């Protein structure tokens, strides 16, 4: 299926020339053109590409930047569109932007992240004149009722006056751990990795701040699926639509354990010993602010 869509100029689609490499990346479809990247959601609704149940421009922008990093591109700063949360991008990837750092000058920024009208993004050098992308073929039509219900749940959850009846994680509490949450930044004490970060040690000395990141793969040590009725109230609007929520206890190769939700857009029956990797996705919204975090995706 060739998806017709509005791309940000100066990018255009080609059909089936084979000049671009298509792949799946953190739950999205990417087209790698070497010096530029086209990334889009895997889902279609009413002939439009739409975000999955826990994705948005911010999560996809992070995935796109991480893809470019994985290909050896050194993106230090980037121009972001207004639909992308610059602080979350910075915490997750270390890539700065004018929206996050007022000291940055436009002419110093070498990369652009351009949003399409649908759930599509392009990451490219700022001086790019034009790039051609071959459209990904394997999109999936999302169930209309599911899509509409999830959209409505997020809309309600994001209303400023909507105060979750769940555990209250204040903005400062969330931000204190956000870098570790979004990028697996961890402390290194004599070669032992500590994640999530801790404050003082048994000698009363402050543990050095996060200086390393954990490898973003881990093994499942245990898992559970909470019924919709038993889900924490932060998730009470969406859990019934999702049919419950699934959590994994995993151990990273460097030692630390963690607990992570599974992304909302996959069917997965976990087994102890499975390997998973991670993608930044929406967790929940509180008082108008979306809390982002890493969620697990099985490595197939």
């Amino acid at each position, binding site marked *: 299926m060739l998806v017709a869509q509005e791309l940000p100029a100066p990018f255009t689609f080609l059909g089936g020339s084979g000049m671009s490499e298509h792949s799946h990346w953190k739950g999205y479809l990417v087209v790698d053109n070497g010096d530029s990247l086209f990334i889009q959601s895997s889902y279609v609704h009413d002939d439009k590409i739409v975000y999955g149940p826990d994705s948005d421009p911010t999560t996809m922008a992070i995935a796109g930047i991480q893809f470019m990093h994985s290909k050896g591109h050194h993106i230090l700063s980037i121009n972001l569109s207004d639909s992308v949360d610059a602080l979350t991008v910075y915490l997750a990837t270390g890539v700065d932007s004018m929206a996050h750092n007022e000291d940055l000058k436009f002419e110093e920024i070498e990369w652009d992240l351009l949003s399409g009208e649908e759930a599509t993004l392009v990451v490219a050098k700022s001086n790019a004149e034009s790039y051609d992308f071959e459209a990904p073929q394997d999109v999936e039509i999302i169930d209309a009722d599911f899509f509409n219900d999830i959209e409505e749940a997020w809309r309600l959850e994001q209303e400023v006056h909507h105060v979750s009846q769940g555990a209250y994680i204040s903005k400062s509490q969330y931000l204190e*751990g956000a870098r570790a949450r979004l990028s697996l930044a961890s402390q290194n004490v004599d070669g032992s990795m500590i994640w*999530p970060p801790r404050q003082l040690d048994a000698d009363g000395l402050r543990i050095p701040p996060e200086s390393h990141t954990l490898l973003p793969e881990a093994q499942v040590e245990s898992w559970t699926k909470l019924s919709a009725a038993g889900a924490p109230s932060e998730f009470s609007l969406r859990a019934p639509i999702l049919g419950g929520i699934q959590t994994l*206890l995993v151990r990273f190769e460097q030692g630390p*354990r*963690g607990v992570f939700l599974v992304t909302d857009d996959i069917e997965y029956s976990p087994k102890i010993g499975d390997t998973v990797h991670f993608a930044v996705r929406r967790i929940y919204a509180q008082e108008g602010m979306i809390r982002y975090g890493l969620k697990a995706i099985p490595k197939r």
Partner: protein
Amino acid sequence: MLVLLGLVMVDVAVIGAGQTKYGNHQLGLKGMWAEAAENAFSSVDHNFEPRQVDEAFIGSVAFGGGQLGNTAALLTEHSGLDGIPVRRVENACASSGFALRDAWMAIKSGQADIVVAGGIEKMNDLSAERKRFWLGVSGDTEWERLAGLTFPGTYALMARRHFHEHDSSHDDLVNISVKNHMHGFENEHAHIRKQVSFEKAESGFMVADPLTLYDCCPTSDGASCVILAADHIVQQFTDDPIWIRSSGAASDRLALHDRPSVTQLLATQKASRDAYTGAGLTSNDIDLAEVHDCFTIAELMATEDLGFSEQGQGGVFAREGRGVRNEGSVCINPSGGLKSKGHPLGATGTGQAVEVFKQLRGTVEGSRQVRDAEIGLTHNVGGSGATCAVHIFGRERNE
């Protein structure tokens, strides 16, 4: 009172204990506490008046009831204890286990002679949404909660891992559920007085895979109260005191993923080690134990961590019925435990002490009596194991 190298070693006894029925109460905080205190006061054999109390420690998470700050002052005001130093003790579900420990320490230190320890929780006057808020606030909110975990979820992770590492399965948890419902069936204070068959417990509604409804304790209203006295005045009140032979307590990291093991509660192991050492006893000496079975897997792990079975053998212990009243090696949860008796969070720890007090004095309903009970243990856990208090009680004082 024992004077050793110039130090005064005070022994502490329980001289009275009482509680409300656990369940869905029409009473509010004041009414429930007054009922528990009244039952405790009237259980003292002679000469007791509330005005004799020096100090009070009252455990509560302050879940419902509408009085979060200064709860303890409100409660003592309505139970004839006006004017004494009092405070709310909060350590999640172990709140009153720690209130009991604080009361014990107050007397041990020589600062008080008669101390009240109690607990209370009003859980059923909130909407389902608000209830889930309170049920989640005692876990690690920043990491576990944002990974979708409530306590059923956290204990479900422990259960699945235990099944993976050891000779245990969900059938063992079903056996625990069936046993505790059987023990609680005739307990007039129990929230759920209903026996369940293995088949029914096995096929319960899935709450957090692999834990079903029959693996989870209910949310209960209730209050409990015990009265402690120093050894030199015990005889004024009773000829049949129950001695607190030791108190052990410990803490662990709040989040499950930060702990070295997810199939052992290190706080329980340390607290019980200290308690056994303090009493000069071992797990083999315990006749009955009220253990913190907020979920059936919690009881299975507790039987290991308290030393009633080898590590990893809690499933076998349950399978062989070794915790069944008057049949096994030690009676586990003669009251029905949290599973059947109920779990009004802040009231649970001292509620366990009420059961042990009555069992050791031989005053429970006849059919529930553990034969020849001389030594009992209480095990009260906060959250998923971040805090734990263990107490050992006996008909005799420490030698």
